[in-house]
């Protein structure tokens, strides 16, 4: 019997029981849709985060901070009394494979223009070095970033100037603004203030930055920050390496730790990315596993329906065999039915899963999930663009058909093994 005829015979059997076949197919659709939706959302999310991280954060940099962690909550000195100082960059610069390094002092302070004041990060850095490390992001959109700045000069992030990204300007180049900071460690706490001059507004960076420039920060010259905050201790030192080879990252990290007798922690951007991507793979696998369970249920549904259909059609199988159909062909007729169900289920499932992912992404965008608000990790609103890779599409297709066929194997095999004379006698 020709393959095409086997297929059309299978199809005629499915058409006969539209509701039942439809419900069975629905099981496959739900399973596949769940897998596709979850995978495309999580891949989209992963892409967004990785992309934003890479934008605000160079892979050939290391972040050195006192004690443990890379700055999360470690303002000021660590428990051991060790202090990372601004001019420790000199020690780090001596280490082979280090291009340069920059110390960062950052505090939460206020910036006031007219009657409006904002809470912002005040970041003290050496403009020239910082610009050389983040040559793509520490770039002026208007004004000029001075390489040798006067103490009252400041550079502001895009969202300090254009507050909401809609043209509401807080300050522009050549404005004077007041910088305020409360020294809470002084007894009694003391408010410090000075008038600064905006010399440059950074271009829009977007995304998250670890150590790198951010749209929400105000950059003041490092020497000014030392005087203003009354400290020589820095919060972190960003180190630029010759390259982002794993060996370089490792050797420099070790050398830095050794230079400071193990009292600093060194975080590599690449390591953070790797951790994130492995976390994502795990989450993805977990989600796909849950979705796979629904597909398994669909598979059992297929098996159930095929066994029922086999009993109903015992006599028909007897007729087919009496007419000279080979056992193998009977098997193919039944498998053909499951292939059709699996194929329709997978195709509709992929389409509806993709639709579902987009709906979720739109809801996500509206509710506006906000990331950030930490000393080292800052960001703006995230948008997720669901991603349906060809691999996922093909996998979903194979999976949908595969599950259908596997669960149909037993009923189909039973059908093919029926003895013609007994099948014909079946009522």
């Amino acid at each position, binding site marked *: *019997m*020709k393959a095409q*005829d086997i297929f059309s*015979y299978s199809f*005629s*059997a499915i*058409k*006969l029981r539209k509701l039942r076949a439809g419900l069975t197919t629905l099981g496959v659709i739900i399973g596949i849709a769940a897998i596709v939706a979850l995978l495309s959302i999580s891949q989209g999310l992963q892409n967004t985060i990785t992309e934003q991280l890479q934008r605000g954060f160079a892979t050939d940099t290391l972040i050195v901070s006192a004690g443990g962690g890379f700055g999360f909550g470690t303002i000021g000195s660590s428990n051991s009394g060790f202090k990372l100082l601004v001019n420790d960059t000199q020690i780090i610069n001596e280490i082979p494979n280090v291009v340069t390094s920059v110390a960062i002092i950052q505090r939460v302070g206020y910036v006031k223009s007219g009657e409006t004041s904002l809470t912002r990060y005040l970041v003290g850095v050496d403009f020239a070095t910082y610009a050389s490390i983040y040559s793509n992001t520490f770039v002026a959109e208007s004004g000029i970033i001075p390489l040798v700045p006067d103490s009252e000069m400041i550079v502001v992030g895009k969202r300090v100037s254009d507050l909401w990204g809609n043209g509401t300007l807080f300050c522009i180049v050549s404005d004077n603004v007041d910088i305020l900071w409360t020294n809470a460690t002084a007894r009694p706490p003391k408010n410090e203030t000075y008038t600064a001059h905006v010399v440059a507004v950074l271009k829009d960076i977007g995304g998250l930055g670890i150590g790198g420039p951010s749209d929400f920060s105000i950059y003041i010259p490092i020497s000014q920050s030392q005087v203003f905050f009354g400290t020589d201790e820095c919060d972190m030192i960003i180190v630029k390496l010759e390259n982002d080879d794993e060996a370089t990252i490792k050797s420099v990290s070790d050398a830095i730790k050794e230079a400071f007798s193990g009292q600093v922690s060194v975080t590599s951007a690449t390591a953070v990315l790797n951790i994130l991507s492995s976390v994502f793979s795990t989450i993805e696998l977990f989600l796909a596993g849950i979705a796979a369970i629904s597909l398994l249920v669909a598979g059992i549904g297929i098996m159930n329906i095929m066994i029922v259909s086999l009993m109903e059609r015992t*006599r*028909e199988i*007897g*007729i*087919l*065999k*009496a*007419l*000279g*159909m*080979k*056992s*193998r*062909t009977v098997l193919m007729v039944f498998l053909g039915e499951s292939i059709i169900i699996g194929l329709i289920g997978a195709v509709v499932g992929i389409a509806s899963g993709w639709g579902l992912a987009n709906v979720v992404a739109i809801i996500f965008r509206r509710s506006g999930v906000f990331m950030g608000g930490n000393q080292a990790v800052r960001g703006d609103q995230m948008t997720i663009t669901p991603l349906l890779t060809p691999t996922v599409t093909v996998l979903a297709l194979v999976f949908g058909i595969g599950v259908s066929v596997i669960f149909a194997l037993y009923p189909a095999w039973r059908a093919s093994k029926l*003895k*013609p*004379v007994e099948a*014909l006698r079946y009522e």
Partner: protein
Amino acid sequence: MKVIVEAFNLKKTYMLGKVPVNALRGVNLRVESGDFVAILGPSGSGKSTLLNLIGALDKPTEGKILIEGVDISTLNDDQLANLRLQIGFVFQFFNLIPRFTAKENVELSMAIAGLSKAEREKRAENLLDTVGLRERMNHKPTELSGGEQQRVAIARALANNPKFLLMDEPTGNIDSKTASEIIGLVKRLNEEKAATIIMVTHDQRLASESKRVVQMSDGLIVQEVVN
């Protein structure tokens, strides 16, 4: 005359629960090309069992069957399926596929044989014409009378130019008036198309139209009469 079917000392024992039933107890039969054999006998005499064995739908417990000289016990599953392709079966309960039209039912056995769609359609139409159903070939079995359904079944049995026809009480499930039409058709097939026919029947009228009547009782052939 060429010998089509030969059966030697056929025995068939069924297990009915734990009780063995000797359906056939040593049957010998020889059917030549162009023959028209009617097998008569009361219920349980083994007529249908004999027919199923000759049609390769079942296997004998003992003895052997030669079809055109080939011992069918030596054939494997696929070869048996191929053999069944060349045997035309007609059942008491028609056994048409309900979701297919008359034409599609006739086409089905040719599709199993691997014929192309165009060939199948042409031949199915001719066959339905032969059995007088050209006008009703696009009707489904439920829209056809018993006699019409049986004629579709006969057309289907003829589809692959079978070596012989096996009919299991072809008039057993239709009224006597329609039965006469079927009897006429079967007789015509034998006389005009030289079809070899082996038929199980209760119908004395049908039996009297055959060339040879084989009387069975208790799993044995007890009498053979040439008409």
